[in-house]
């Protein structure tokens, strides 16, 4: 099998911050164009897994391949929306400027952004329903709106892989449906999507494939395979009742 049929391959990945590994011997493959959800309890290593897929964290052992090449050689091929933006909200940039940063990899330094770049940025802001805020300074937005601007920035990058770390955390129903539309549209365009998700109730509905993570990879596959009672009760210890209901419903 040609390895680059896969957008992302993770092999025997172990990452540790201290003595105890945050991720232990995780292996999985994600096909091009798939919409994959990563689930697991707080502190399970979901964000760490995302950062490993971006090549941000040091791996103890293991490989991460992006389109068959080591992740370090693939900078720019993956667009990323962090869980919590750790930026300086007083920074003098407008919403449109932030989204334009997604285009920086495509711009020649001596040229201003072309009409095409501006159009792409406008369309991405439109997709996340932030067009009305273009001229706003980035700090003068609500948390959910800021998150959507970062999503527009990642979309504008035009990458083939999009990683989103909990895009649905703390957003209202309207925003949630807007984000779902964006995901659907990206998927239609053939983009591979990996999304960290917290809400088990909607996970099976939103994603083609799920990765259940808690330090180790407990299960990977279609939701029907991952949502098995013994697995969930092992990973989400002590909250079994909720899942029994969930599995019934």
């Amino acid at each position: 099998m040609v390895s680059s049929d896969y957008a992302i391959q993770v092999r025997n990945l172990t990452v540790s911050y201290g003595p105890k590994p945050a991720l232990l011997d995780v292996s999985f493959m994600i096909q091009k164009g798939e919409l994959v959800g990563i689930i697991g309890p707080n502190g399970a290593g979901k964000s760490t897994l995302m950062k490993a897929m971006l090549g941000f964290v040091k791996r103890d052992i293991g490989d991460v391949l992006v389109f068959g090449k080591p992740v370090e050689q693939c900078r720019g091929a993956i667009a990323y929306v962090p869980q919590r933006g750790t930026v300086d909200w007083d920074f003098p940039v407008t919403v449109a400027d932030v989204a334009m940063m997604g285009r920086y990899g495509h711009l020649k330094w001596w040229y201003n952004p072309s009409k095409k770049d501006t159009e792409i940025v406008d369309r991405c802001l439109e997709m996340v329903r932030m067009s009305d805020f273009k001229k706003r300074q980035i700090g003068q937005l609500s948390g959910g709106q800021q998150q959507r601007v970062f999503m527009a920035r990642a979309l504008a990058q035009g990458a083939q892989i999009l990683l989103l770390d909990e895009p649905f955390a703390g957003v209202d129903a309207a925003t949630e449906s807007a984000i779902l539309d964006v995901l659907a549209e990206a998927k239609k365009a053939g983009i591979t999507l990996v999304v960290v998700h917290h809400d088990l109730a909607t996970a099976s509905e939103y994603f083609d494939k799920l990765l259940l993570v808690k330090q180790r990879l407990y299960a990977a596959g279609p939701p029907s395979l991952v949502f098995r009672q013994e697995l969930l009760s092992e990973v989400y210890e002590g909250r079994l009742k909720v899942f029994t209901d969930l599995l019934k419903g």
Partner: protein
Amino acid sequence: MTDILSYGFIQNALWAGVLASIACGIIGTLVVVNRIVFISGGIAHTAYGGIGMAFFLGISPLLGAGIFAVVAAVIMALITLKDKNRSDTVIGVMWACGMAFGIILADLTPGYGVDLMSYLFGSILAVPDSDLVYMGVLDIFIIGYVLFYFRQIHAVSFDMEYATSMGVRSGLIYTVLLVMSALAVVLLIRVVGLILVIAMLTIPPYIAEKKVCSLKGMMILSSILSLVFTIAGLYCAYVFNLTSGASIIAVSSVCFFVFILYEKLKEKLRS
């Protein structure tokens, strides 16, 4: 007014003001938005170790300070990139060590006593032509760096993690930024003194940031503000016979507080 300008030293002071304003406007903007004011202070003080060493070895103080500042900048960049949250402690230690080292070496230097304190204040009214040339070269370097790498600098300053994911070599851009501020600080210490450098690096960008919403605009506006403060300060120094550096800082500070008051009042009136 015209007879003030006929003095050569006043002309040099004005040129120094222009060149320092350009450097401070650009670097100050980056220092403020990257929140590295403390690091710049640390670099400047570590450079004192270099001045002491230069006296001890009998080499040019500018060279000694330059070497120390650049090395300090690189070390601080590496530390900050590794551990963002506790880096300020290490910087504080380097700050103190650099100064102590400089003073001890100056004590050990045989012959004459060296007054390191004179480097705190500099003297814009006694700038030799050679320093103007150095400053001009520095300005060219700074402008070149910012023009050439503007988008990378912009992306890294705003969101280093994202910039890295796009393929920008964030660590390098950040390190070069610190080295640039180190060079700027060292050169400007000699001309206008350490305290004025810190004031010029922070006050104009702070005001500018409230008035414009772009990095470029902030750089240009802070350079202009810096120049206005310098000229107004020099004029006050001349008219009231005050120390020039202190008078420039006084003018900037008064403008700073008036500006804050004005912003607060505006907020009150609006609500």
